[in-house]
């Protein structure tokens, strides 16, 4: 009964991490330069979840974050030849690379993560109420 709580908690933690990456994506919506000062627009990140069989046992599978992946897709190019970060030569000469972040996608993802969070808290509520009712067998 108590390990059911552990499973729900693992889901809460995983969804929290997912929400954090979405926050990062939206925060870096117009980031053009990376950690080292290179001209490299921010690439959106997303989490990959994985089952965790060791946390709960008894055939129950908890969830954990397997990895945080980066979307390696082509950035968004805008023609701004006077911009200091515009490409000097090559195919995209005169274009500036912007992060390709679709805000609608990110918000739908955030909504899904927060609803999943709520659902897991609901399951915990049910578990708690069952434990409380079980106590009344003895009392």
């Amino acid at each position, binding site marked *: 009964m108590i390990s059911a709580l552990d499973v729900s908690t693992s889901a809460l933690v995983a969804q929290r991490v997912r929400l954090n990456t979405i926050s990062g994506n939206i925060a870096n919506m117009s980031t053009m330069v990376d950690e080292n000062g290179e001209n490299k627009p921010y690439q959106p990140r997303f989490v990959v979840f994985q089952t965790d069989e060791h946390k709960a046992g008894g055939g129950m599978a908890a969830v954990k974050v397997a990895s945080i992946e980066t979307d390696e897709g082509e950035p968004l190019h805008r023609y701004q030849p006077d911009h200091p970060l515009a490409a000097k030569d090559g195919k995209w000469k005169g274009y500036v690379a912007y992060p390709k972040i679709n805000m609608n996608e990110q918000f739908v993802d955030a909504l899904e993560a927060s609803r999943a969070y709520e659902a897991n808290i609901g399951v915990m509520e049910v578990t708690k109420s069952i434990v*409380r009712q079980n106590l009344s067998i003895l009392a």
Partner: protein
Amino acid sequence: MEIRPDSLFARHAQRLSDGVGVRNQSDATSSPASDFIGLLSSGVGHVNDIQNSANLEVEKMLAGEDVQSAEVLTGLQKADMAFRLLVQVRNKLMQAFEEINNIRI
């Protein structure tokens, strides 16, 4: 407020053995798992462990360390549930003791 199930149980066990007075000490020490008191006291120890780890987590959270709040709160909830069960078991035991105590010979 800090609740110490150990002391609570020790008092209770004392009353039990005082009242009944037929407990075989060597029995209790040789086979703690099969003995009812041994079973109960291992349960108390377990509840105490859960409470201690929950306490530790809360202290970490209050100290501003990087812990997941969901995990801390789940730890607290588990400690609460385990303690409530322990108290119910203790109440049941006390009830049985009172009943035996009231038997007129």
